[in-house]
Structure formats: structure tokens, C-alpha cells
């Protein structure tokens, strides 16, 4: 009994020496190896780590919801005075939802599509609170109100498909709260959401936790989310917690080399124009865990002891402990980390007067909506509605926006993968539209695309050599045969892969290596323009840094122009020369990076920038809360598309779509407000730009 008392004093949840393994044939592959955790009521413990380090397995093991192959060979999970690993399944059901509840990453798949929201809420209420009838409805309404859903009466009777992504995640949180849990496990709760929605959800979680004094175990890979949410932080690497610290100490002075590297690999303004720190190699496989320190193989400071012996916990400050043999590992070393070869600063000078490589004028892509037996067109989804861009050789234009704003469609329409409905695309002064496929082929080798998901963009049935050779053969760049082999080896070397990789198959490579292969495939035809469609969003931070470095050095070497489609402002800040912000199929603000990111003029740009959680504690700009979500491009609001969500909307916004106002020769914004403030600033205006923007 004394032990249980001790546990109660320690906190809500205490995990001791928890080990998780996955059965593979006769062998057990350890995924999590003896982790200790403790979460007190009202506290948020953030588990931080890259994919494959065992964060999600830990969360599932706490609820005993591991997949069929998962085993728990040892450990204790003390929750509310009981060891959950020894509870019978029937009692465990009362703990799930009633004691601990979980929020999953993907709101789209964690709600049952054939049950109404009310039904799914009632299920939990009936099970855990034994409510029935009117009481269930009453409680469900309260919960929906608590998670900030407007008009909860109507939403109760709706099905998940009628809700937007952010709304679904709110409903999911309401369901998790329904059983009045004392601990909330949130597994990457905002990874699938846009930044503005992410900010809303994080806000909500913080508020609910404070109201209910819940403990929270937050699993994430995003340092920015950790900075906003955590009380304490645990860093996981290869199935172990390697560092644990209170938030302030963690951000002020991370001690473990792995943590320091994670910070250093983040792209941001401080290291603009220089190479990012990368972590060489990758997380060791489950089947081949090294005997000593698991990070030794990738650690720059590793010495003999690291490889021979696994480090024990070491206390360095109150509440701050780590597993590392190095004791000279001084914090804050990372702050000046990225001192490697500074490449020519991207935003150095205005472009010389060169003819643009790519000129997009008033590009439109409308998808017809067909209804009825005769499939009559009843309307159009205006995915892209009048986008104009220019891009010169050797520069990077970032196209930024939330999901569904049409930025990927722009990329595909430029490549003529989607037939544009209107407007023109000129590459090297030649019109791309209205060409036959044969006539388009010589121009195809001038432009290539790198896709978002390196797992979907490589045909699993072809070897790497065949994948790279495909474009060369189709576009007649190199004769197949001997010359082809040498060309493939050269292009593989260019992206930092060995020539032997050509004979292997994509599934043998990690995500980052696959993305290198995809880049090699595009480079093989020697393009001038590369359209990068979120090339790093599916990758871990350390791998993202490698790919960004590679893209930067290729641009410096080959003078490539990038059209960089992304939603990640840190990447934009690091890499791009110019930025265009899209909202609902139109560009709302466009200009040089320093203009747009440092002095944003459009309220949407400001809101976006303020919603990005920064990976540090100080200098967080005030979050501009955007109500609602992006409307459907099938029925855009009248007037300025953004006015229903705009905090500064005025009467003119409801009436007409604003014309573009040119603030400087390069900075263009489509908003009524700047024009109102200084009406003298028209298209020809060449005065100093107004400085109403949020700086920082």
C-alpha cells in the first residue's frame, strides 16, 4: 500500500521502466526501452521526437491499445493508484475515456462517418457517466459549447462530412472530454491542420486544461507547439527519453547533443542564407539498436565511452536531467550553430533586368461541378482564379497559403498537368497553353516538379536507375545505354547518393533519401525551373534541413529557379527571395521576403504570420485570431474573399474585390485598407511603404 500512496503523491500518471516491443516472426523488436514519465494534474508533458522514435507507441501502450503485434514485456503504468498493465480488460475499458482520453492526429479518420456528432458524443456519455435521455443531450450541448462550436444545437445532428477539419478536431476534443478524464493524451493533435486552425486548437486545449486541471501528455515533433503548450519537455530518441527538463530550462539551454541539433536544424531568419545544421545518418532500425548510447553514431561529440556504454540519467539542474556521457555539453551552443559556409544571401539585391524565365498571367483553373442525370454543369470550383507570377533564373518564389487555397493547382497548371481554364503561362518566352503534347515535349525538360510525399512519388516497382532514366529517355536527353548509366551516376552524386543506388528499389531508402531520388529524377533532364510542392512537409526536421541545404546548393551551382509551394513560413524565410500569399485561389499579397514577412500589409498575411508558433519562448507576436475557416472556392464570399474573417473589414470590403495596390516596386497587396490609409499610394506610388505591419 505504501507504494500506492507514494504514487499518488508523485502525480496523476507515473510510468516506470515501460518497455514496448513489436513481434516480428519469432523475434521481439524493442520499440520503447524502459522509459519513465510522470504527469501531474494541471501539467503538460510534451514528448518530442522524430518519427519512428516510439512516441505514439508509448501513448497507445498507456491505454493498452497497441496494435496486434505490439507487446509490453515490462514496466508499470500507475494511474490514479492502480497499475494499468495489471488491470483486467473490463476495468481497463472504464479507464479509457473515463480516466484518460486520447485525441488523434487525423480528425478526418477519427470520427465515424456514418454516425452523427450527437451519437458519438452520447456513446461516451452513456458509457462513462451513465447518463440517459435528455441529460445526454444537455451535456453534449455543454461540451460542444465548451470546445467553441457555434450553433451546437444544429451540429449535434450533423455528420462528420458536414464539418470542416478544425471543427472535426473540436468535436474530437469534445468526445475526449465527455468522460471527464483526468489525463488527456494528445497525439500530434494539430499536425494535420493549417496554422490558423492549429493556433485556435492549441488555444482551446490550453483553456480547457486550465479550467479542468487536467494532466496532458502532448506528443509532437514541432518545437513551436512545445514552446506554446508544455510545462515540461521530454525528448525521445530511438525508444528512450534522452532529456527531460522544465520548459524554460529546455528552451534556454538544451543539453543533450540531439536536442541541440534539433534546434539547430530548424530553418529560420537567424540562419538565413547559411547552411542549416543537419544530423547525419538516421534513427537506428528497431532490429539493430547500438549497444552504447543510441545517438552515438550521429553525434558530433561522441567518444569511446559513448559507443561502449549506454549513459545513465544525470541531473544537471533541478528537474533537468539527461542521458549523455558528455558533461561539457554547454547549452546555448546551438545559438551560434549555423556558422557554416554562408551562401550568397538570398535577399541580397533586387534582380537585374533579365527576361523572366516563367511568366504566369491571369492563370485560371475552374473545375466544373456537375449535378443530375445529365451531368449538367451547375457551377465552378474556382481553384485558381487569376494568378499572375514572374520568376527569373536563379531565384526562388514561395507560394504560401493554407490547404485548399489552390497553390498546388497553380503548380500543376503551370506544368500543364491540369489544363488551365484561362490565362497564359510563358516559359522562356514561349506560350505553354494550347500546345499539343508533342509540341510541349521540348519545353517539358525545362521545367520539372518535386512532389510532397516521397513515398507516393516513386514507382515502387522500378529501380532507382530506371526511375531516373525514364525522364531522360522520354525527353531524349541522353541516349539509353552506356551514356545513360554515367549520366545517372552523375545526377545521383549531385544529390548526394552513391552511384550504386541506381540498382536498388525505392523501398530500401528512407524518406529523406527518397526525396533525394525525386530531386535527382527532376535534375536528370537539366531543367531551368523546378516546382517544389511542399518537398519537406512529410519529412522530419533534421531531414528537412538536409533537403533544404541540397536545394540551396543546387540553386547556387546550376542557377535553378524554384517555385516553392509551402505552408511553412520558416522554410520560406530561410530559402525564398520572393513570396506570394494565396487565399481562395487569388494572390492577396506579393513581394520580396523581407517586405512581406517583416512588414505584412494584408490582414490575412498578418494573421498567418502571427499564428505560426515560434520555437522559442520570447518575442511571440500577439496572435491575431481569425474566426472560422476558409470558405469553399465553389462559393467564394462576395467582395473581398477574406472579409468574413477579417478583423479589420470595412464597408468597401463587402462590395468589391480590391484592386492591387503597389506599395513598392516589388510589393503588391490586394486590400482596401492600405489604399484607404494612404490613398496617394496607388499603382504608380513610389513613396515609402506604410509601416503598420507586425514586426518581429
Amino acid at each position, binding site marked *: 500500500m505504501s507504494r500506492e500512496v507514494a504514487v499518488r503523491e508523485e502525480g496523476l500518471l507515473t510510468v516506470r521502466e515501460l518497455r514496448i516491443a513489436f513481434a516480428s516472426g519469432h523475434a521481439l523488436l524493442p520499440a520503447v526501452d524502459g522509459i519513465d514519465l510522470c504527469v501531474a494534474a494541471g501539467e503538460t508533458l510534451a514528448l518530442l521526437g522524430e518519427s519512428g522514435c516510439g512516441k505514439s507507441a508509448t501513448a497507445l501502450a498507456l491505454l493498452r491499445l497497441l496494435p496486434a*503485434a505490439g507487446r509490453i514485456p515490462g514496466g508499470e503504468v500507475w494511474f490514479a493508484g492502480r497499475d494499468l498493465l495489471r488491470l483486467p480488460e473490463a476495468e481497463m475499458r472504464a479507464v479509457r475515456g473515463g480516466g484518460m482520453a486520447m485525441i488523434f492526429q487525423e480528425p478526418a479518420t477519427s470520427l465515424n462517418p456514418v454516425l452523427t456528432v450527437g451519437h458519438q458524443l452520447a456513446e461516451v456519455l452513456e458509457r462513462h457517466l451513465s447518463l440517459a435521455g435528455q441529460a445526454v443531450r444537455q451535456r453534449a450541448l455543454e461540451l460542444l459549447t465548451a470546445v467553441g462550436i457555434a450553433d451546437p444545437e444544429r451540429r449535434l445532428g450533423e455528420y462528420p462530412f458536414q464539418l470542416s477539419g478544425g471543427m472535426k478536431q473540436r468535436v474530437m476534443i469534445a468526445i475526449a472530454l465527455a468522460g471527464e478524464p483526468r489525463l488527456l493524451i494528445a497525439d500530434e493533435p494539430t499536425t494535420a491542420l493549417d496554422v490558423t486552425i492549429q493556433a485556435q486548437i492549441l488555444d482551446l486545449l490550453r483553456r480547457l486544461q486550465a479550467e479542468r486541471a487536467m494532466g496532458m501528455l502532448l506528443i509532437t515533433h514541432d518545437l513551436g507547439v512545445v514552446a506554446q503548450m508544455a510545462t515540461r519537455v521530454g525528448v525521445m530518441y530511438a525508444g528512450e527519453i534522452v532529456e527531460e527538463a522544465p520548459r524554460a530550462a529546455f528552451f534556454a539551454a538544451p543539453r543533450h547533443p540531439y536536442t541541440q541539433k534539433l534546434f539547430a536544424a530548424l530553418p529560420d531568419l537567424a540562419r538565413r542564407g547559411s547552411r542549416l545544421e543537419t544530423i547525419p545518418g538516421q534513427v537506428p532500425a528497431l532490429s539493430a539498436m547500438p549497444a552504447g548510447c543510441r545517438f552515438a553514431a550521429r553525434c558530433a561529440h561522441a567518444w569511446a565511452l559513448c559507443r561502449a556504454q549506454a549513459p545513465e540519467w544525470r541531473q544537471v539542474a533541478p528537474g533537468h536531467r539527461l542521458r549523455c556521457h558528455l558533461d561539457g555539453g554547454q547549452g546555448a551552443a546551438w545559438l551560434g550553430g549555423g556558422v557554416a559556409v554562408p551562401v550568397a544571401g538570398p535577399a541580397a539585391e533586387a534582380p537585374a533586368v533579365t527576361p523572366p524565365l516563367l511568366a504566369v498571367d491571369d492563370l485560371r483553373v475552374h473545375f466544373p461541378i456537375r449535378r443530375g442525370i445529365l451531368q449538367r454543369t451547375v457551377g465552378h470550383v474556382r481553384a485558381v482564379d487569376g494568378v499572375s507570377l514572374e520568376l527569373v533564373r536563379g531565384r526562388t518564389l514561395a507560394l504560401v497559403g493554407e490547404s485548399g487555397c489552390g497553390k498546388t493547382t497553380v503548380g*500543376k497548371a503551370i*506544368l500543364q*498537368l491540369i489544363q488551365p481554364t484561362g490565362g497564359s503561362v510563358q516559359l522562356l518566352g514561349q506560350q505553354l497553353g494550347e500546345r499539343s*503534347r508533342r509540341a*510541349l*515535349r521540348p519545353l*517539358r525538360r525545362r*521545367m*520539372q*516538379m518535386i*512532389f*510532397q*510525399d516521397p513515398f*507516393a*512519388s*516513386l*514507382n*515502387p*516497382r*522500378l529501380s532507382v536507375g530506371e*526511375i531516373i532514366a*525514364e*525522364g531522360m529517355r*522520354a*525527353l531524349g536527353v541522353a541516349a539509353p545505354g552506356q551514356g545513360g548509366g554515367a549520366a545517372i551516376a552523375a545526377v545521383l552524386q549531385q544529390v548526394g547518393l552513391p552511384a550504386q543506388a541506381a540498382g536498388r*528499389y525505392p523501398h530500401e531508402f528512407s524518406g529523406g533519401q527518397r526525396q533525394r531520388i*525525386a530531386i535527382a*529524377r527532376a535534375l536528370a*533532364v537539366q531543367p531551368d525551373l523546378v516546382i517544389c510542392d511542399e518537398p519537406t512537409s512529410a519529412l522530419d526536421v533534421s531531414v528537412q534541413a538536409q533537403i533544404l541545404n541540397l536545394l540551396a546548393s543546387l540553386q547556387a551551382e546550376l542557377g535553378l529557379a524554384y517555385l516553392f509551394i509551402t505552408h511553412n513560413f520558416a522554410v520560406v524565410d530561410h530559402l525564398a527571395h520572393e513570396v506570394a500569399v494565396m487565399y481562395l485561389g487569388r494572390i492577396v499579397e506579393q513581394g520580396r521576403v523581407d517586405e512581406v514577412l517583416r512588414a505584412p500589409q494584408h490582414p490575412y498575411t498578418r494573421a498567418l504570420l502571427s499564428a505560426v508558433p515560434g520555437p522559442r519562448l520570447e518575442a511571440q507576436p500577439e496572435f491575431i485570431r481569425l474566426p472560422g475557416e476558409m470558405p469553399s472556392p465553389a462559393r467564394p464570399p462576395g467582395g473581398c474573399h477574406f472579409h468574413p474573417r477579417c478583423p479589420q473589414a470595412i464597408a468597401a470590403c463587402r462590395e468589391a474585390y480590391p484592386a492591387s495596390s503597389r506599395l513598392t516596386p516589388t510589393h503588391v497587396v490586394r486590400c482596401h485598407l492600405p489604399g484607404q490609409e494612404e490613398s496617394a499610394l496607388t499603382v504608380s506610388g513610389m513613396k515609402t511603404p506604410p509601416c503598420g505591419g507586425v514586426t518581429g
Partner: protein
Amino acid sequence: MPDLPFLPVLLWSDLLIWLLLFGALLLGWLSARNPLLCAAWQRVGRNRAGIASATLLLAFVVVGLLDSLHYRPRLENGSGPAAGGSVGSAPAYAVEVLSLLDELLAPLRTRHEKTYSEPLATRAHAKEAIEVRTPDGELRQVRDYPRLRHGGAHLGADEARHAADIGERVLHGLALALLAWWAVAAATAAGLARAEGGTPRAAWRRIWHGDSGFAWNALLAALAGLLLPAVPMALLAVDYHVFGTDKVGQDVLYQVLKSVRTALVIGLVTTLVMLPLSIFLGVVAGYFRGWVDDLIQYLYTTLSSIPGVLLIAAAVLMMQVLIDTHPQWFATAAERADLRLLALCFILGLTSWTGLCRLLRGETLKLRELEYIQAAQAFGVTDLRIIARHLLPNLMHIVIIALVMDFSSLVLAEAVLSYVGIGVDPTMISFGTMINNARLELAREPMVWWSLAAAFVFMFTLVLAANLLADAVRDAFDPRLAGSA
């Protein structure tokens, strides 16, 4: 032309069967060269149920292949004195077409009884009036079960030894089977020991602990399961009718063995007809979408909304009329029956491609949105090349699964169609015709059950083995399951 003792006959279905075998060998060769396919087949090799059923299927296939080498034996023309003078004339060949299997099973094929007899019986199934000579030399008519002409004839008058003789042969057969199995198993262990190094004893232990990369234990177990009943049966079949005889006194064991080829032809040739149609139309519909997709969808929804049996009946009856009005096309009855079998395969193939086509269309719709297809389009790769290089290889697992799954349902379909009288030629032995005949036999008193039982056991084994193999193949080729296996 040299005087052959026989005239080879190549039936159309033989040609297709050997082509299929060649195709399977080609696929095997291609798989061995492609590491991905190779890995998938290795996963099949590790699956115990899959290997056991593959072993059984292989036995069926060997029977079917032996039955697919046809010839017409030369008639002995020296028998009659009238024919003796014509030395220079062309040799005459029998009208009857035989197969290698017929030759091997010659005793079974030729030893006809008068009518029904039970399995392993020495006397007929029904009483008859027999004339018996009494010791005093008088002929008397007795109503009794007559002795069979062949079944147990070697016992002579000593009919009491019947049970002992059967027991002896079974024990003998079991001993022989065990010996043969032991020899094969020992040879396997020795071979494995030589290939991988180590002692035969260690290899033996590895086989039975399932540690090797191939499910040798399942193969050996299936072999034991095959040999233990087969060898005693073979010994018994020399002098008895193991599964009895049918209405016209034909050995039922011979009939079920002959049915195997019919089932294989129906199962394999039909998929051969079906595959090109469903692959081509499914992929084209999914890839090009638009009006091509509409057209193909209309085609298969129309086709699959007509009752299949009706369509098949109409086509088979038309074919029947065509065959009956052109007797001059066929040199032998076997060729006529063969053409009808092939016609049935084609008709079944033309009506059953819709399912796989729909499946492939759906998968293609999904695949064409994947980024590697778009990357190929961004290179300006032609549509045909995208289909051949990017789509087809990624659809192959579905095709292989469908192929093996359809096999068993087609074998069953043949039985059903023959039962309603629109299946194979009545002269052709098949599971369907056997089951059809059993309809009347079951109504007799006492019941004649062995014909149906034999057909059932053989067909059940064949279909079950095919289904289990299909399961193993699906698990091995499904990319979603491949990771977890």
C-alpha cells in the same frame, strides 16, 4: 514418314494447356530476375498452408498434364488374313483418341463391369438371375449377386479371403508409402544440408522447426498426406475397383482422374480469355476516364445485369447447333468434345471478366492520381508507356490474386453448368457430368453413393487447395500486408 506405333493428336485445349505451362515457367523466370516479385514468392514459400496446398495442386496438375498428351494408337492390321497382303498401304489408326494417362491407367480403363458395383466389391450391386450348375450336373437358376468380371477376380473361388486380401494390400501399401516418404524426406534433408552447410541432422531439425526460408515441413507433410492414401489405393486398384463402378460398369477412379483435366482446362483457359479483356478495359477506363470510361462502364454493367446462366445457355446451344451441322470438321469424337469444352471456356470468360475489370478500374483511378504517375506525365511520357511501366506492374498483385481466386469458382461453375445440361459434351468426363449422373443414382434403392462421393472428394480437395493457395498468394502480394508479414 516412319511407321509410328501411334499418331500424335494435338487438341486445341492441349495446345492452350501447354502454352499456359510455358507462360507459368516464363513468369517464374521473370520473377526470379525481379527482386520484388522474388521476395513476394519467397513469402508464399514461407507460408505453410500455401506450400501444402501447392503440393497437392501440383499432383493434380501432373495428372492433368499427363492427360493432355493425346494420340491415336495404330491398329494391328496383321490380325485378319484378308489384310495380310496389303503391306504397302498406309497404316490405319484407331478412331479413339487416347492420352498418356489412359495408357498408364489402361487396366482401369479397359476392365469394364456390367453395371454398378460397390467400392472394393467382388460382386455386383444388384441381384440377377444366374445359372448355377449343381453338383449333380443340373443347371439351376438362382437369383443372387453375380461375381464381377474383374473386381476381385484373382481370388477365384476363395471369396472368403476378400477382407484379408484388402487388409494385406492396405498394410503393404502403407508400408511402401512410408518408405517412399522417408526416402524423399531424407533426400530433402541431405540436399538442404549440402546447400546450406551443416549436418543432415541439423537440417532435419531445421525443417521441422520451420526455421528454414521455405516451408519444407508443410511440403513433406502434404506429401505424406498424398502418399499414404495414394499408394494403398494404387495397390488395390490393380485388382479391385477402389471407388466402384458406374452404370455402364466403368471404373469411377478412372473417371475422377480424367475429370481433373477438364476442371483444370475450365479453370485455366477461361482465365486466359478473361484476363486480357478485363486488364485492358479496366486500365483504359480508369486511366483515360471521360467518355472511354462511360462506354466501358455501360458495357460491363449491361453484361453483368443479364443472368449469367441464361447467356451461357444461349451461347452453348448455338455452339451445339454449329457443331452438329458440321460433322465433317472433326476427325474424331474427342475433337468435337474438345471444341465444345473450349467454346464453354470462351463463353465463361466473356461473361466473367466484368468483376476483375471493375476492380482494376477502381485501382487505376486511385493509382493515376499518385505522384509518380504525375511525375511521368510531367516528363511527357506517352500514355501507353505509363500504362505499361507504371500502372500494370502495380496492378499485377490484384491480377494474380484474381486469377487464383477465379480458378476455384470456375471449376465449381463447370459442375453447375454440366448439372443443368449446358456444360461440357456428354461424352467428356468431368466432375459436372459425374454429379449430374449421380442425381438419378441417389434416388435408387439401395442408394448408389460412391460416384458422387468420389467426385465430391476430388473436387473438394482441388478447390480447397486452390483457395488456400490463393489466400497465401494474396497475403504475399498485397503490399499493405507485405510489411507486417
